[in-house]
């Protein structure tokens, strides 16, 4: 495309440097100094006192929880989400917009309402039990299973969409060719379709992994406050105005996340496959 449009990128460069870059630098500074709302510039000094946080048990466990749950959620969403995306793709619906909307529509309702609704029916005595006489899910509220179910079915739309988009781009002639060449449908799927849709899987995995890793509302509600994610700790630190510790954890989380993106986007150098 013509280079004449370069100018269109300038406002965004300015926007990103003001609203992303400066706060990012500020956060790094806050995380290695004693800077907070009551410290004046003259008292400002380098300190790593609050770094002791990183050796504390809850922090480590929270990091571990975030990682394990984000990983499992991504894996389960990938398996189930790929299946759904593939079935929708097989239906050959003409209007993509409708498919996208139907998949994403649940996310338009408030997250807290949705999660509390799940908590409701995961509890022993719940609204469905009062209608049907039995509890559909038993009494799983407060267990890791409940948290996983909540995470998987909240974020799965983010997995389905990019996979579906990737599948849709595959030329049907390729599949036909594979079948003509004597591959069984199973082989043609694994050798042709799946590799071609892999970019969508990478994108979907990123979009599911990140919010699960950094979030905290769903685990907090569905585990009944018994499983702590790193997001919970960051939140607590910021709410109690302990910005230094909060910024430190946020920076580490960000490094972590950017690192995993770089790792995942080896498949796509610019991380631009997202949808």
């Amino acid at each position, binding site marked *: 495309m013509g280079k004449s449009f370069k100018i269109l990128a300038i406002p965004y460069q300015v926007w990103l440097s003001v609203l992303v870059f400066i706060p990012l630098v500020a956060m790094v500074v806050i995380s290695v100094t004693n800077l907070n*709302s*009551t410290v004046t510039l003259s008292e400002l000094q380098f300190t790593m006192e609050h770094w002791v946080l990183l050796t*504390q*048990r*809850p922090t480590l*466990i*929270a990091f571990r929880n975030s990682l394990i749950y984000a990983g499992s959620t991504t894996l389960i969403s990938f398996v189930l989400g790929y299946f759904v995306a593939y079935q929708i793709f097989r239906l050959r619906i003409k209007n993509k917009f409708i498919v996208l909307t139907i998949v994403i529509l649940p996310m338009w309702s408030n997250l807290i309402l949705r999660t*509390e609704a799940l*908590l409701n029916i995961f*509890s*022993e*005595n*719940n609204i469905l039990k009062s209608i049907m006489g039995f509890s559909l899910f038993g009494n799983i*509220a*407060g267990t890791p299973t409940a948290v996983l179910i909540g995470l998987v079915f909240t974020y799965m739309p983010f997995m389905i969409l990019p996979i579906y988009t990737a599948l849709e781009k595959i030329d049907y002639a390729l599949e036909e060719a594979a079948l003509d060449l004597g591959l069984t449908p199973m082989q043609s799927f694994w050798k042709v379709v799946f590799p071609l849709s892999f970019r969508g899987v990478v994108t979907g995995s990123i979009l599911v992994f990140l919010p699960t890793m950094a979030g905290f509302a769903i685990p*907090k*509600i569905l585990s*009944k*406050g*018994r499983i*702590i994610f790193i997001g919970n*700790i960051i939140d*607590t630190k910021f*709410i*109690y*105005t*302990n910005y230094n*510790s909060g910024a430190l954890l946020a920076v580490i989380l960000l490094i972590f996340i950017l690192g995993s993106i770089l790792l995942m986007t080896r498949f796509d150098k610019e991380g631009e496959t997202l949808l």
Partner: protein
Amino acid sequence: MKKIVLLTFIAILGVTLIGCNSAPKLRILNWGEYINDEVVAQFEEATGLNVVIDVADSNELFYSKIKSKTTAYDIVIPSDYMVEKMVEEEMLLELDYDLLPNRALVTYMEGVNQIYDSMTATTLARTGDTVDYTDYAVPYFWGTFGIIYNNRIEGLEESLQEHGWATYFDADTYFPTARRGMYDVAQFAYAAALTYLEENPNDYSASLLTQAEDVIRDANFTEWGDDTLKRNVESDNLDMAFVYTGDYLDRLYIQLDEGKTLAEVQADFNIFIPETALVFIDNMVIPYTSENIEGAHQFINFLLDPEIVALNSEVVGYATGLEEAYDIIVSNVTSEDPWRQAWATANLTYYNKDRAGTYTPMTALDPDAIDAINTMIETVISG
């Protein structure tokens, strides 16, 4: 495309301008659904001010909102410890009692005075300053904390009345299979544990922290929640939880609306308030952001009118701080209207002003102490 952009900007501009009502504004930062709309309407009519209410769900969010100065709030309704913190950081204006003529006509309840006294005492111990908190704050609602319990469990009520806190914390001895819940505010858990240990809930030391940690660990909490606690006890998904007494009354009022009687609700779930009760008080204060200081005083004065306070109490399940308003509420005990009658009985039962026992607020702790308590609770939860 340019036209679309232009039109959108014009639309934004238009909406922003329409948003500007010409009447002078009074900006309030409040808890959600924490005021009777009727009261607001009457105040607007009486003063011609346009009341704008923002809501938040924690004192800490109030604090960051005031501190950031992004909105010129005239009234905030923070709790006790946050008032201390805000006074300490010079975020509040002193009240001008000449503008609050109603103050002279009412009496604060004994519990309210006790709370302000304890706040002064802890501030003195912590910072060496003597602060009279009534210089800054007027009570909005207050209330005790208690242990909401599932009365469908045989013997639990008796045990709570006989052994008090121990029934809740000592899971080895009492009701080992009972499902126990705790508020997910670390300081609440810490203060409750210290009260059980018969220590001052506002003291902090490394050894107290360890003792509290042991107590909290032994209680074996199955849930760390907030609004979910009261609903879970109500629906038989939880057996005991440390909550605001107002949490119980909130559910009680709803059950009464559903047509149940007070006795029926109490038979399902009830709340036990220990003799040494932890309490909170929400206060009307004027933050330094205020641009309508006179209007703010008008509002506070309006809410020192017992009739208005009683009206406000009809929708909020917490206790009034004014004896005169309390008298109006409990006088409904002879009312023909079953709801009013139950409302008055509930206030007599759970917020009785002649109740025996002491009231201790949870006061502001040192930020390092708060951080340590938060970490302690996180450690217990992580197992």
